[in-house]
């Protein structure tokens, strides 16, 4: 009787023990001479196992993976272990930081740096960079500002990416917007833009700036570009949110007007891109990351898109500017990290730094002036067409309340674009929400 009564307890204990044992057997032992590298950019370990030569690949995951493989082949004493994240990787990072087990290197969007740096989660790298051979002065201006917080450099930038103007030259030619040498006649300023818009509408029935309401690119980043083009800024002098200003409203109203006129497209962005690839839309707003993909489409003889050009985002305002961002490598070991560990991490970052040109073959723009000036860079497909946009990149605000910026601006602007709210209401609601986030700090 007693044995029988004890049976369920025994079974449960046995089950628990076996679960724990099985689990423990699966755990991965930590190594001390190992760098834990976390990044988005997809997962492709198996695909490129053993590959250490880049060749002419343009796939984002391939480049990162092969660079890591190459490093591992040459540095058996310091192996880099890559873990892929679901972009932007914040969920995994936050959980790891909460547990006190952050990775050594992590890919982070530049605009998040102040948030994490101010909470002591990131290791300041300024003193380590020169020693490792990374010349901070080689960085493009806006990029350098984006990775600096309180005077310290917290990251090694990987790229500049942004919104560009992808053009179907055949359709532009129909609208009379291509010159004798086959280059597009890029309109500058509102009047020229409107004129070009009309020409395109008349000739092709499609908007001159195809876009979408369901994606942050088609809402917040277009607006941010217009705002910057008129010299405005979403941040005030004290670093607080500033999106309910006359300049902001003017930018939004211009946006709405151009939309109503059919110059800026609407609808679902996936459909817009599909139409572009099928030769039905004259030109679209899309990211640097699309360049490769669409270039490949053009190479297909059956493709409808035959002549493809990539220009910087249209200048509708007074000065050239377009939304931009930057991927960076950070070392989230905190303010009191072991210097040896940080040094080891920065060594790998130097490796990435040296291969910045290889990374730009994916379509992203470089962060280094020296690379930007090089003939190889300028010879990359389409790069010469949209070179220089990095210098006029309007970044997301790099502040403590940046974490919600994209999502809040996208949502409120979308509401305005879809007619759910007036432009004033949308901006005022956005301002209130950003202030609310700032108040949590």
């Amino acid at each position, binding site marked *: 009787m007693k044995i029988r*009564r*004890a049976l*369920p*307890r025994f079974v*449960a*204990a046995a089950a*628990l023990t076996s679960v724990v044992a099985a689990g423990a057997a699966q755990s991965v032992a930590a190594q001390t001479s190992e760098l834990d590298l976390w990044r988005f950019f997809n997962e492709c370990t198996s695909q490129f196992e053993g590959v250490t030569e880049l060749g002419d690949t343009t796939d984002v995951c391939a480049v990162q993976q092969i660079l890591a493989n190459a490093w591992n082949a040459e540095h058996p004493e310091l192996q880099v272990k890559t873990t892929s994240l679901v972009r932007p990787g*914040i*969920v995994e990072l*936050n959980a790891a*930081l*909460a547990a006190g087990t952050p990775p050594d290197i992590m890919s982070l969007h530049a605009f998040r740096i102040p*948030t*994490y740096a101010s*909470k*002591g*989660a990131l290791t300041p790298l300024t003193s380590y960079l020169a020693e490792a051979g990374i010349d901070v002065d080689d960085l493009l201006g806006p990029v350098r500002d984006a990775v600096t917080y309180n005077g310290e450099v917290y990251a090694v930038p990987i790229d500049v990416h942004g919104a560009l103007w992808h053009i179907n030259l055949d359709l532009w030619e129909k609208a009379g917007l291509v010159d004798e040498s086959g280059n597009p006649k890029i309109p500058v300023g509102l009047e020229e833009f409107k004129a070009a818009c009309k020409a395109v509408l008349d000739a092709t029935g499609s908007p001159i700036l195809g876009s979408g*309401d*369901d994606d942050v690119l088609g809402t917040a980043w277009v607006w941010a570009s217009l705002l910057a083009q008129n010299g405005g800024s979403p941040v005030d002098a004290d670093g607080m949110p500033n999106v309910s200003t006359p300049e902001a409203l003017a930018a939004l109203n211009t946006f709405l007007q151009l939309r109503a006129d059919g110059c800026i497209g609407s*609808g*679902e962005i*996936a*459909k817009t891109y599909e139409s572009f690839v099928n030769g039905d839309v004259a030109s679209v707003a899309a990211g640097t990351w699309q360049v490769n993909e669409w270039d490949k489409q053009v190479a297909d003889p059956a493709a409808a898109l035959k002549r493809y050009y990539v220009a910087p985002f249209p200048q509708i305002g007074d000065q050239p500017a377009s939304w931009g961002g930057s991927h960076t490598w950070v070392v989230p070991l905190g303010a009191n990290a072991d210097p040896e560990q940080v040094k080891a991490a920065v060594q790998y970052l130097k490796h990435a730094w040296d291969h910045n040109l290889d990374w730009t073959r994916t379509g992203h723009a470089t962060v280094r002036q020296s690379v930007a000036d090089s003939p190889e860079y300028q010879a990359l497909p389409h790069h010469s067409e949209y070179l220089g946009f990095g210098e006029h990149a309007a970044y997301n605000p790099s502040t403590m309340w940046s*974490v*919600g910026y994209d*999502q809040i601006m*996208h*949502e*409120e602007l*979308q*509401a305005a674009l*879809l007619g*759910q*709210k007036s432009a004033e209401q949308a901006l005022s609601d956005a301002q209130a*929400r950003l202030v609310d*986030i700032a108040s*949590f700090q």
Partner: protein
Amino acid sequence: MATTARSAWVVGARTAILRRRIGRDTVTAALFLAPFLVFYVLLKLWPIVYGFWISLHQWETIGTGIRFVGLQNYSRVIGDRLFWEAVTHTLLFAALATPALIGLGLGLAVILNRAMFGAGAYRTLYYLPSVLSTAVIGLIFLAVLRGDETGLLNRLLSSFGIGPIPFLLDSTTAMPSIALAALWWTVGFNMLILLAGLQNIPEEVSDAARVDGANGRQHFWHITLPLLRRPLMLVTILQIIACFQVFGLIDVMTKGGPGGQTRSIVYYIFERAFGQGQLGYASAIAFFLFAILFVLSITQLKLFRRVEDAV
């Protein structure tokens, strides 16, 4: 319960045996409950308590700068326009999805309970979407609900002359669209539970009713449905709780849009906790949800008890 002479004797003998058991019962119960309770306390109760503790602080997900603020987060939630909008959206979702999921689940269970050619195949088909994970369902329905004439649903509607509807960009159709995706995804599970319930209805009951001349509809309403009370109650309560926790589909399909019109309570919790790093505030919202669900569940249980007693 049927009472016969034999049963009376059983009752008498039973009592004697039971008297012997009373003392040991508590110990035995404890043994049976122990494994469950250990895990439950460790992995559900303690985290709930800890979660509540977190909600009383300004607590960043990243873990530094933690300050005790008492009930401030809670008063903040009460004044939060987005929270109340999320409650409305979630209620709308539950109001749309629950009757559909139960009604359709029941209908399918009834239809597919009989012996017909391929009933098993049909059941598998309706269950099939359940084997796909959230992200996939979201992607599929992004294609189904595409706003222009190439969307699957729009193509179907166009054959009836109804113009292309931008399902996910129109605030009136956005949440119903999510409900549709949820329906397609999980109706199979409800069908299974109700099927099991139907299977439990004793054959004699059906036969007796048929002998008495009950026709199909009478049979269903007066015999089947009352006997399905328990599984139906179970499915309804579970369904409402699940609906109130809708998150994954929203994350993949609309991210709370358009213009925030599909933001659900759990989506808001996730945004605040992981998107904006405000764990304390997010925990407070979670406890509000907890309270809402608690009240809802108790109310439902009481309602069902009253229905049971009345019948």
